[in-house]
């Protein structure tokens, strides 16, 4: 089970929880599982079938590079941070 840290603005959708768990071998599968448990959450995280370009998913403390296809370990921790760019 991946442990997903829920950003504060999403918490109303998950009954105020800061951390939830979800099943999935990829980020996309985890979000799909979350959507089943907490309808509406996928629309907030994704856009046009991809992770929202305004977000970066961090998996186990590192920014994910494959978007929804990012593979997850059995105990992976997932976070969603605002996207960042360098100059």
């Amino acid at each position, binding site marked *: 089970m991946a442990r997903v*840290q829920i*950003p*504060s*603005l*999403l918490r*109303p959708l998950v009954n105020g929880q800061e951390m939830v768990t979800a099943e999935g071998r990829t980020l996309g599968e985890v979000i799909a599982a979350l959507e089943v448990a907490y309808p509406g959450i996928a629309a*907030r*995280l994704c*856009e*046009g079938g991809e992770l929202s*370009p*305004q977000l970066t998913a*961090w998996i186990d*403390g*590192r920014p994910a*590079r494959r978007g929804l296809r990012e593979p997850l370990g059995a105990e992976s921790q997932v*976070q*969603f*941070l*605002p*996207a*960042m*760019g*360098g*100059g």
Partner: protein
Amino acid sequence: MSEQYTVIGTRPPRVDAPAKVTGQAVFATDVVLPGMLHGKILRSPHAHARIRRLDTRRAEALPGVRAVVTAQDLPAARDITRRLGEGAINFKFMCDNTLASDKVLYVGHAVAAVAADEPHIAEQALDLIEVEYEPLPAVVDILQAIAAEAPLLHPTLHTRSLAGVSERPSNLAAHYQAIKGNPAQGFAQADVIVEREFRTQTVHQGYLEPHASVAFWGPDGIITIYTCTQGAFAVRDAVAELLQYPQAKIVVIPTEVGGAFGGKNTSYFDVVAALLSRQAGRPVRIVMSRAEVLQATGPSSGTVIRVKVGATCDGRLTAAQAELYYEAGAYPGSPVGSGMHVMFAPYDIPNGQLDGYDVLVNKPRISSYRAPGATPACFAAEAVMDELAEKLGLDPLEFRLRNCAREGTRNIDGSTHGHIGARQVIEAAQKHPHYTTPLEGANRGRGVAIGYWGNWGSISSCTIGVNADGTVNLLLGSVDVSGTRTSLAMQAAEVLGLPLDKVHPTVGNTAQVGYTEVSAGSRTTFATGQAVIRAAQAVIEQMRARAADLWNVPVEEVDFERGVFYTGHDDRQTMSFADLAAQLNQTGGPITGVGNLDAQNWGAGFGLHIADVEVDPETGQVNILRYTAIQDVGRAIHPTEVEGQIQGGAVQGIGWALWEGYRYDANGQMLNPTLLDYKMPTALDLPPIEAVLVQETYPHHPFGLRGVGETPIVPPPGALANAIYRATGARMSELPMTPEYILRQMKVL
């Protein structure tokens, strides 16, 4: 890989220097193609207006005019947002920013373009283009833009956040939030709380070279574009998207880049030059004027930042909170996420909340600028930390050390620090003679600030080809904006066991080399460096096989060290790189090594700056007496170039701190679109900048380096604000800290 390096860590002359000191280096504005025309762009005089009518017929009729284009000549763009270059962009917005269709959103917004035989004819033609505007109310102030009655830039744009989409349209394009622990409880535990509001102005990267492109749309359908960019592939992809044209038929040839600092990640008029060329059937060159650079390319956000930080009597931080409002300009996409990320990154704070707001205003769309978003956030955080330390009676470095982030510390935005050197730079500062020597004299003060930048890895490609004389060609996908041909060739030379002068680095065009991300985010020496190492290793592997063939031994028996192939059991079986290279064409043909990768595990950078100033108490003028910039750089590949990055970055930060800032009137007209009034520092405004390299090998790069280019722009405003406070007794909460502002804070005015 050997522990003792022969090339890494040395200070050879940079490979691009001879061409640059003789005037022979070719920048985009120097490119001349046969039959080339001169393009110019008509720009909006209004900050916000509807285009009622646009008539180019008189311009087309002017003798010497060969092409005129408007937004009508661009195919309809896809309304989707994708990452391109350094950030996310909606293609419809990108298209609209290239040539405005129904509305202009800032002074300088491109409306039409012409190409003519001579520049002055093109200029005259612009006068003949008739545009009827319906002026609309403009908004340039960040807080006014999100007020209820503000004029809307995009009437259908709603605020987006993880909480959903706002009900009403708004200039507030996005809201981000992060909470760590329990902020309210953290503040309740604090003995001292400091709460302040900060404002910073829009600033520009200030590269000396205005944007320039030469485009030729050939009869074969190939579009060739010479341009100054941080990433040839980013330009190619933007042109392909805007024209909906095959990527393979667009060849972007990156020229020398006359300074970029994030501002040349974006393609502004490559497409326009291409369209003009198609119409004219001849190459077209477009070069921006300085006023166009300042008014029509992406500067960095002006900001409003509210900060609240609490600590206990023994100097422990308990909670921190910040609201960050960042200008996006005319289209969404400010670096507020980065601002949130860096804001309290040097510190270990148990509780906190960050709210970031991306705000549309009638200014050009924000582009990256060296550690985008970080400098204003650091300024605000470090001024508050300085005030807290003072209230607690603690030395500012000691206070920072007590609360210093380390590996594993969780940032308020949710990210976790990897291997970092925050503690190391603070300790280096404590021991540095600059800090241990007391500053004496009236009206003088010393300030410190610590700044952070996360850096980047990402995608790079390169090819190494071996020549028969033992030299190698290194073809790089990374544009060289900071001396990376040298720092990358050095990594190749080290791996290949060759002296640097045997490695000839070249920046490739999009038809020659694999996809490579923009040279941005302090990533090139780190990430492309690893691609280079891979390519070099691939060369060695193939050459070992050739040696094995020649000696008729299994390849596993061929070793390679310091440029020599050998087997352990026969003294005759030894061959230098050059000797083996000479045999390649007789032993199966050429060898090339390719390095392609998406580099991960990049290391973040911390910088601690110490500034001594003297402030004229009657005029408010700041004289910087001494300046030291300390940074953890991992291992410096080329220490002199690293010093140069630190000195240059620090001085840009100093300019931001003291002089630079866009000034607008209420109608959105920029009041200072020249280098006389957009005041960048001259040699006379600065002291020597001492760069101190804290070199501790970074574990996730073969040579142990971190990115270095961006961190040094982050601390200067904080360090100077704190120094000015010590000199005057007045706290600073705005950038730039002009003499007039300082006098006002001192209550002299």
